[in-house]
């Protein structure tokens, strides 16, 4: 309690000072850091510790879709110092639009803690890793309720995309509810990959094949959701969901807490799953880039990022944090894939705007079911 009160006072004072006037660089208390992150994506204790250690007040704001983040940054003067875009399509596009500033590695001594191979995978979106460091990462796969799927479709393979994309399985699983992620940018590359095509393909013929695959299962989809997959899986409203790894794992935790006998599992299907990275980056016009660098450096400490991973169930890119991560998270190969799992993961690249329009148009048809 005694720790919370001053932190809160500082935050309020800091916010107040920043709102009134920005001249007060004299006192540490007036420094503010504006963070714009995904919702439910940090351990609140980590922010408090940062404020305590640095005296910088954190104004923490959340978004729930990349589109919102991108629109704010492209409109200019967003006022944020730290943003957390996903590598593709948003991070790479923000770099090309000139919306992010290069990081000053001299101000991030903990850069050395980062996993080299993971950072190399990010190179495709940001050549030379100049604009961002990996915050958390994960895959896109299936969140499922094995018991209920067994009931309605005993012979369906629980580790395969066939479960969702083959009408003979989807039609039976529809009885306990299928939730589709309402996100063309996440689903279309996965379907392309499932069909054995290049996940970055923009060819019309390929897109038509994707549409056929999706249309065939359209009658069996109960809901489209952006952030609702966790709740729907956890409450048993659906038994199969196209979901981010961490969301499905959070759903599993919540289902367990609720104690209603709902069991949820995450699967990165054997045919391959899209690997993504959420990146800590600094907008070009960040009011307090100095504090932003400190925040990035702070997060890259093993014990800090371990606390984040323990809280949100997404893996991080700091190998030294592993000893401090809860054993059941670390042991779950769906969260922390083994080395050989990476072979079937794929990453995506940027797509030209005309192709994106074709994709979102197809997506609208798919959602409408006509």
């Amino acid at each position, binding site marked *: 309690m005694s720790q919370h009160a001053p932190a809160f006072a500082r935050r309020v004072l800091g916010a107040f000072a920043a709102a009134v006037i920005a001249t007060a660089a004299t006192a540490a208390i007036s420094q503010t850091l504006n963070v714009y992150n995904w919702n439910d994506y940090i351990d609140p204790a980590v922010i408090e510790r940062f404020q305590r250690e640095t005296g910088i007040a954190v104004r923490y704001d959340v978004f729930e*879709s990349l*589109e*919102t983040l*991108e*629109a704010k*940054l*492209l*409109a*200019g003067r967003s006022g944020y110092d730290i943003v957390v875009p996903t590598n593709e399509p948003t991070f790479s*596009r923000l770099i*090309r*639009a*000139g*919306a992010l500033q290069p990081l000053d590695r001299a101000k991030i001594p903990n850069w050395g803690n980062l996993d080299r191979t993971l950072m190399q995978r990010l190179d495709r979106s940001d050549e030379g890793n100049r604009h961002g460091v990996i915050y958390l990462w994960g895959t896109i796969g299936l969140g499922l309720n094995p018991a209920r799927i067994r009931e309605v479709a005993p012979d369906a393979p629980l580790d395969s995309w066939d479960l969702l994309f083959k009408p003979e399985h989807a039609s039976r699983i529809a009885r306990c509810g299928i939730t589709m992620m*309402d996100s*063309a940018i996440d689903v279309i590359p996965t379907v392309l990959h499932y069909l054995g095509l290049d996940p970055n393909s923009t060819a019309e013929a390929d897109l038509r094949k994707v549409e056929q695959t999706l249309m065939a299962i359209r009658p069996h*989809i109960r*809901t*489209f959701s952006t952030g609702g997959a966790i709740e729907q899986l956890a*409450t048993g*409203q659906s038994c199969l969901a196209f979901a981010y790894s961490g969301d499905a794992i959070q759903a599993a935790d919540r289902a367990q807490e609720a104690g209603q006998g709902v069991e949820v599992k995450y699967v990165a299907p054997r045919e391959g799953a899209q690997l993504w990275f959420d990146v800590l980056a600094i907008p070009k016009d960040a009011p307090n880039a100095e504090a932003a660098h400190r925040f990035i450096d702070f997060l890259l400490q093993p014990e800090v990022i371990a606390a984040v991973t323990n809280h949100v169930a997404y893996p991080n890119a700091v190998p030294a944090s592993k000893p401090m991560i809860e054993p059941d998270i670390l042991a779950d190969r769906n969260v922390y894939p083994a080395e050989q799992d990476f072979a079937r993961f794929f990453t995506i690249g940027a797509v030209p*705007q005309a192709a*994106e*329009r074709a994709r*979102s*148009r197809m997506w*609208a048809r798919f*959602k*409408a*079911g*006509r």
Partner: protein
Amino acid sequence: MSWRLPAGRTLVLALPFAWLGLFFLFPFLIVARIALSEAALGIPPYAPLLRRDEQGTLAIVLNLGAFALLVEDSFYLDAYLRSLRVASLSALLCLLAGYPMAYAIARAPERRRNLLLLLVVLPFWTSFLLRVMAWIGLLADNGVVNNILLGLGLVTEPLRLLYTETALYLGIVYCYLPFMVLPLYANLVKLDPALLEAASDLGARPWRAFLAVTLPLSLPGILAGFMLVFIPAVGEFVIPELLGGPDAQLIGRVLWTEFFQNRDWPMASALAVVLLLLLVLPIAWFQHLQGRAGGGR
């Protein structure tokens, strides 16, 4: 030359015009300008209209591509038509539900009217978003309605209520009903009861008196209520998103997709400009009717 102070009348008129110019015309011109520019990657994500070429000549580059696509691709027309259909049907449903309410309040004893009006406006004291979310709790598969139906044994499996067209209309009618009731009430309460007595003295039954006297006299109220529901309902985004099915691709959603997903600000702006024109026409028509009704008095 002699200066004359503007008459009080001119001043009074200038204020709303200045207001309209500042908060309607000016923003509209900004949107129209973006609609005529070209999408680009950058901050902001469109190219400026006024450009200097290599020789330093200033040129205005207008891009009609967004409007052309709007006409070419039937997707947009479909969305407009669907939105207009949803909005007019919602306004009609609001009228059917709101007219008896307004009528009853207007006919209630005077001391009770304020309380009844308060009850109509009371939901506004809660956040709009919260009220729409409450419908999710009511209509969900394991929601209140389904639990009651299951409990009574009326159904054996939960009904699909949420994310359907029914839920969409329920949400819109619920949220916009006060906008129908209030203008109708304001109109009906002014109705001279002597007119109805006269109709009855002349031998008209209550129903006939209603059709021949009350209904025609309340027409301005009906039109005002209809417009107040119809116009915001056309561009409604939140209710279809939260309650409607995935096939509810109304123009608000299409605009959102163009702006956020495709990051095509010119296209989104073109959609908004056309939507505005679609809405200005019925308002102009309404003004025209109002003017006629006023002139006849």
